[in-house]
């Protein structure tokens, strides 16, 4: 009759994109594009086109290797509506990267092969110790790497098509406190760690219908990341250790599809303008489920509603050739949040947002070029989560400088 039945609802919210990342379209995948608000679907600038539009890669001249690195500084704060207590994150700097190799085959001037390796996901959100939402989440670390071999073919002088196969690999580490307290006043803690794999593809068409005007259409498929042999570890008072057995868990997370339409226009010899419209299939993220191998009355399998909705993002930018070597870039992006009211979580304190970006590029003679970019965004979201009842306002500032080196041969 006095058996302890501590039902422990595991409501980890699996997803936290890089904190800046509404959808995948943060476009930390190319510095030249990032400087222009993240637009690059119809503007074939460099080997990063393997990500942005494989159809346009065949229009990028020569062979090239393009290596990008970013440093993401994201700080979030939470103001509890009821207690006025402010908590903040102490997340470490995230370092999304992207590397591309684009090669022309000698016997076919129209065919290009490429390999793209990039991190569409990758972040650590860590809240300060003992924070208000500790029983919802204390830390979430997520890294997904896409490896994408790609073929791009120039059908005519005006049309290019391309396709890439995506192999995705990643890992996840989720932690939160468990509301059982021991004689020393310590709360329990749970840590879930696992590796995930998934597959997908990236398709694109690039078209130059009239001089100076370019159109791009791409579709990057959904990738289902499946965690098969995750390890769940629990630290609880010894009298409850049977209720929280360490063991395996399985889960899965859909990384949604992105359909994009892009335009580019060469305004003058020195200036190009680009616009991308992305439509991200976030509706796929409708439930988050955890299945534990060792269930007890306290540790039950869970299904949490997420109910994300499909969203648009608009990215606009331009560049200006100051000299033969130096290029300046400026951009802005409007991204709508896929997270409906009532579903905002401390790992994804997402909101509609405006990204401001700027960039510089410099070409050293024939072979080398470097690009730098800078992104800033700030956003705010108020709400009460329907699952945890955590109620308050999240504010987040994100600053991401990035650098790339391009070698052409």
């Amino acid at each position, binding site marked *: 009759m006095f058996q302890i039945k*501590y039902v422990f609802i595991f409501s980890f919210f699996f997803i936290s994109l890089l904190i800046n990342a509404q959808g995948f379209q943060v476009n930390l995948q190319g510095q030249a594009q990032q400087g222009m608000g993240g637009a690059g679907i119809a503007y074939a600038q460099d080997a990063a086109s393997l990500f942005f539009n494989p159809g346009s890669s065949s229009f990028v001249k020569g062979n090239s290797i393009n290596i990008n690195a970013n440093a993401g500084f994201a700080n979030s*704060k939470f103001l509890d509506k009821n207690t006025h207590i402010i908590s903040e994150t102490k997340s470490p700097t995230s370092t999304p990267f992207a590397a591309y190799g684009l090669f022309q085959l000698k016997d076919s001037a129209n065919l290009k092969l490429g390999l793209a390796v990039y991190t569409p996901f990758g972040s650590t959100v860590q809240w300060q110790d003992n924070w*208000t939402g500790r029983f919802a989440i204390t830390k979430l670390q997520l890294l997904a790497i896409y490896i994408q071999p790609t073929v791009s073919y120039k059908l005519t002088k005006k049309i290019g098509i391309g396709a890439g196969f995506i192999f995705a690999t990643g890992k996840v580490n989720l932690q939160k406190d468990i509301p059982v*307290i021991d004689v020393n006043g310590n709360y329990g803690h749970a840590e879930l760690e696992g590796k995930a794999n998934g597959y997908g593809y990236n398709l694109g068409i690039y078209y130059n219908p009239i001089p100076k005007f370019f159109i791009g259409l791409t579709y990057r498929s959904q990738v289902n990341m499946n965690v098969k042999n995750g390890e769940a570890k629990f630290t609880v*008072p010894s009298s409850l250790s049977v209720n929280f057995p360490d063991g395996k868990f399985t889960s899965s997370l859909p990384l949604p599809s992105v359909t994009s339409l892009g335009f580019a226009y060469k305004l003058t010899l020195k200036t190009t303008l680009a616009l991308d419209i992305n439509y991200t299939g976030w509706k796929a993220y409708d439930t988050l489920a955890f299945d534990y191998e060792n269930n007890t009355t306290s540790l039950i399998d869970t299904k949490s509603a997420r109910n994300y909705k499909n969203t648009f993002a608009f990215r606009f930018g331009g560049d200006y050739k100051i000299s033969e070597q130096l290029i300046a870039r400026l951009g802005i992006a409007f991204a709508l949040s896929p997270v409906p009211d009532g579903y905002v979580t401390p790992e994804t304190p997402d909101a509609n947002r405006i990204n401001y970006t700027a960039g510089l590029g410099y070409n050293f003679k024939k072979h080398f070029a470097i690009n730098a970019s800078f992104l800033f965004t700030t956003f705010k979201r108020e709400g009460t989560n329907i699952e*945890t*009842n*955590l109620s308050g306002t999240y504010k987040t*500032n994100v600053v991401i400088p990035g650098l790339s080196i391009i070698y052409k041969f």
Partner: protein
Amino acid sequence: MKKIILNSFILTAFFLLTNACKPNFKTPDVDKGEIDVTTFVSIGDGITAGYANGALYYNAQNYSYAKLLANQFEQIGGGDFKIPYISSSSIGIGNANNAPSILGNRTDCQGTISLGPIKIATQGDLSIFTSNVYSTQGSFNNMGVADVKAIDIATNGFTNPFYVRMSSSISSSILSDAIAKKPTFFTMMIGLNDVLKYALKGATSESITPISGPVGIGFDASIENALNNLTINGAKGVVANIPSIKSLPYFNTITYNALKLSDSTAKSLTSFYSLLNPVIPFHEGNNGFVIEDVSMPLGYRQSVDGELILLSIPLDSVKCYKWGSLVPIPNRYVLTISEIELIENAISNYNSILKNYATSKNLAFVDVHSFFSSIKTGFVYNGVTLNASFVSGGVFSLDGLTITPRGNALLANEFIKAINITYKSTLPQIEATKYSGIIFP
């Protein structure tokens, strides 16, 4: 030199990126509205005093909702909040001279070890009742007294030992001591013991306080008198109502049909009772307990849905000595439907009186009845699932009647919400997850 400049430039840039771009919040203003909490006095029973886990002791006193409210009042000019503390080195004492309970392993009559409440000593610290702390610690702001009824608070020379140890004199009353403090603000949560004493005895002794009658006898007059006196100098305050006993784990942990039988035991019990009146058919699985009922021909019958078995029932007698099957459970451990009706009617009458006086005297009102019902239903607070389950629910202490520090923080928040609404203040609530529920070994 160049290197130093470059390095310091990089360091500065890094610092700016990691820190200077932190978002800023303007903390909402905290306003006291129409209240003056300089001298805050709380009136009530054991819950107000901080009684928990079956006893009063220092650590429990420190987490009463009244104390937590006083802590919060410091943000709007609240003064010292004096509590008749028991020494922190004392184990404390309960109303049966018992020691407090903790959660631990215990072995039942069948040799099964399970987690449950165990007393930390064979008896409480009796010296607590023999020394009066008024002269050394008084006068007190927390006038919560364990076991007190609404009709007791104006009784001069009240002999409740929890009051005697903190009274200002042998002829004082809880109310007179409270008024002597000249409160500018007060809370009053009283009335539960006016029915609970009766309920705790399984309706076999004690009585339910009548509605009418003079101060000290009738509920209505006693409440009116208390509030008249407390508001005499224009003090503002909060009146709370009382919960249903059905919301308390003491009355809803053991269900009427918790008699679990195997097929063979059920058959042999059935054949045993087939010779008696009434005949009781038992079956495999859960069955209604056999309970004492003097109105029946042979003084027993089977318990029915809606009846409550008290947490005080000796479980070993059930497990090993056939209580509830061959031996009817004594009446004092059972509340029958008609008894529950009497109790719940009284609670409902008390609550309308409390609500009416709160309204007529323009005081804030806390609906503790609804709050405790919501706990019974269960809710999620900042990611923590809370309910009225005994031990695991996180809100009720190990006596099944009083509440944990976390329960107290949640209750204090109900007071804060009521105060903010009535007096247009903007006092923030308490982060209840910072306060513990049941402590597990």
